[in-house]
């Protein structure tokens, strides 16, 4: 078996990020051809979520390389009415490998009305405020930090292209087009695209192939082409990363495309549901009342039991906690499992953590 022939339609960051990552995850199985499409040029700078660090590691893209044309992104800046200017930090509160559970202990104190301000417990927030990490910083503090990037879009795209090509991704000289309203994609010279699977990574440049996100027939839409989410968080990039991993698992094989597509789409639907609720949360933070039954359920869980979302999520528990707290939600109770950890000791840990941030991250504005 020589592996499937896959064509990626698009020439932007999403196309090249998918191409480079998928090539690695699928262990260079089959052939992978990127076919440029004409699309409007996007913003000069693009935001990348923290989860991209895993892809960069796999692709051997060093942070120092990215730092030449980008800067770390320590959280989500809320733009809009309600929480305008607020930062929802990435990273964790407390040492993620430490004993007990920092977040649940904080929720306990919050329900009792005597929790320290969350902002003072986030190393990410201190970094965003200009704090400089000391060279001898405590490993626990380093483990709590997580960052995405704000990066020059053209240079990042060029880097991804270079990496992808070095891993054996082919690039077509001809461009792709599609006859509207529902024609099959083809080369602009009219020739058909010979491939087992077409990946729409055109970031919306081509018309949506179907009205549904995901894999239909021999066309699979990823990233922005799968679902445009107007949120302050780069969910589309996260979606590209998970699409590459998912397709590597469900790599096309003879006579089974519909089955693989069904399972791919089932998992995609779960992912998109998580992104939708996170997007709704960001909208509410920005002062827009976006209906979301899932978010209403999360609010009830948090208010009445002090529990954070447990469904598959694009966000960590810590990010959800920051978002809930930014909206002013106060839990009436907490997970009683945290009562197994001494109350006073929890308070001491918060004090020690806050002091460590102050000590190791001097120079904040």
């Amino acid at each position, binding site marked *: *078996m020589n*592996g*499937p022939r896959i064509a990626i339609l698009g020439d932007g960051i999403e196309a090249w990020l998918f191409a480079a990552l998928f090539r690695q*995850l*699928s*262990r*260079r*199985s*089959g052939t992978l051809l990127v076919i440029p499409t004409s699309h409007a040029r996007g913003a000069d700078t693009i935001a990348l979520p923290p989860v991209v660090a895993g892809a960069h590691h796999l692709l051997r893209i060093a942070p120092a390389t990215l730092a030449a044309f980008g800067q770390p992104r320590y959280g989500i800046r809320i733009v809009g009415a309600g929480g305008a200017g607020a930062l929802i930090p990435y990273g964790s509160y407390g040492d993620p490998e430490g004993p007990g559970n920092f977040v649940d202990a904080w929720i306990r104190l919050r329900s009792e009305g005597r929790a320290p301000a969350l902002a003072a417990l986030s190393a990410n927030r201190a970094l965003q405020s200009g704090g400089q990490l000391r060279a001898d910083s405590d490993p626990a503090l380093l483990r709590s930090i997580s960052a995405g990037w704000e990066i020059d879009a053209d240079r990042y795209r060029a880097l991804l292209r270079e990496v992808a090509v070095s891993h054996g991704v082919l690039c077509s000289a001809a461009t792709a087009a599609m006859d509207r309203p529902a024609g099959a994609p083809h080369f602009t010279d009219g020739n058909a695209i010979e491939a087992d699977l077409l990946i729409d990574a055109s970031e919306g440049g081509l018309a949506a192939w179907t009205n549904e996100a995901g894999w239909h027939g021999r066309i699979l839409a990823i990233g922005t082409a799968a679902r445009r989410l107007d949120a302050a968080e780069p969910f589309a990039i996260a979606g590209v990363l998970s699409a590459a991993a998912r397709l*590597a*698992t*469900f*790599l*096309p*094989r*003879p*006579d*089974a495309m519909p*089955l*693989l597509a*069904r*399972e791919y789409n*089932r998992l995609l639907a779960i992912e998109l549901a998580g992104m939708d609720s996170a997007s709704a949360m960001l909208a509410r933070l920005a002062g827009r009342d976006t209906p979301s039954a899932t978010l209403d*359920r999360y609010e*009830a*869980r948090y*208010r*009445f*039991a002090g*529990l954070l979302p447990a469904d598959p999520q694009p966000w960590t528990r810590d990010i959800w906690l920051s978002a809930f707290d930014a909206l002013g939600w106060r839990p*009436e*109770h907490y*997970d*009683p*499992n945290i*009562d*197994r950890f001494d*109350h006073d000791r929890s308070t001491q840990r918060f004090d020690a953590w806050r002091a460590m941030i102050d000590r190791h991250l001097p120079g904040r504005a």
Partner: protein
Amino acid sequence: MTGPSIRRVVIVGGGTAGWMTALALTRMAGPHAPLVTLVESPEIGTVGVGEATLPTIRHFNVWANVDERAFVRETQATFKLGIEFRDWRAPGHSFFHGFGDHGPDIAGLSPHHQLVRLGQSEALDAYSLPAQAALAGRFQPPSADARSLASTYSYAYHFDASLYAAHLRRLATEAGAEHVQGRIVDVDLDGETGLISRLRLEGERAIEGDLFVDCSGFRSLLLGQTLGVPFDDWSHWLPADRAWAVPCAGTDAIEPYTRSTAGAAGWRWRIPLRHRIGNGHVYASAFQDDQAALDTLMANLDGEALAEPRQLRFKAGHRRRFWVGNCIAIGLSGGFLEPLESTSINLIERGISQLVQLFPFAGLHPALADEYDRYMANAFAGIRDFVILHYRLGRRTEPFWQAMRDQPIPDSLAEQIDLFQRTGEISIRDPESFAEPSWAAILFGLGAQPAVHHPAADIEPRDAVERHLARGRDLIAQHVGTMPQHRRFIEQWLGETGSRP
């Protein structure tokens, strides 16, 4: 929120579910720890057969501060590395569902893809350390060193459920739970709120509470009988509705695994304990009469019967809601799935874990009940599919088995089987239940054969994969050779020195 904070919890039922719940609630720390009363009513019988478990029970025991050695000693427990399935695919065939994987991923893919590629999927058990150890009658706890082959499996227990309940009763009452014995004659509802306010016991006694946990077994005294919550019947998917249970004398060896043997209209369990063997025969009464089922059970005992056989009657499915008002059902009162994969206590553990997390200290709220119901309904559905799978494949020819293969099954399971047979992929829909190695063990064990393997499996040179697999088999065989016999391990471990061999 409805009403004041919850302080007084009343548990109805003194079986495994009741005492596990009582112990867990008394172990809750902090200022909100509830006051626990357990009412044991003589007319609410306990099932009390030999009980097999999943490895998750160890998490419960650790959480509830149950000392492993004392627990094993007092409940006549043995260790369990998995389940042997005999005659399920066809008479004379057997396979093993071990509590572990079938080796590490090979080039990023589950090892079963390479076994399919090499035509060796029939040998899946050879790559399971717990399967090989179990079939050799050996046991040793897994290593805590994640780099070690011996860290790649887990274990559970077999125990006497009556002794387990007694053990937990002692722990729970020592921790402050009140144990009340008496026949429940009535359940009072608050006329205004509809909440349960008290239990009336024979002799003019009444037990008041803020929260009531129904652990009354199949009878479902509170949730079913009193509150009238309907039962979602799954017997069209799982028609086995009766069982005979009987203990028999043990043998010299104590097998560290449960055995499940398929029969004409169901299956028989064999659970080796230290002092006896628990046996049972689950069957569909529409396909086999009671006497024939009993005869089959008695004819296949390994030793002298130690008690009169008891018959159990049940129906697969669960209550439409598990938490209504101030009443929560845990255990058989909430639902039942035949114990083919030892999930009964796992469902109790999961119910308790959710109850503790969602405990309504600050008062009752529908959101808490909704969360609980949502979680438990998913738990039941995930296990349901896995259990039905056992009946779906295979080649047995009796009418019961033909009917099981012909009947409709849940869409989720139909899609799972279809996906596996045509692509070799396994879809995990309930990450808290059975993981990919478990599904692989049952699917391959029953004879499912994927039409293709993952395309990326072909990238690895065939001979290199064969060498890798052969080395894996050798390492497992070598390691099993170093493990003590199960009985010897238990005896030494429980010895006066208390040190593990």
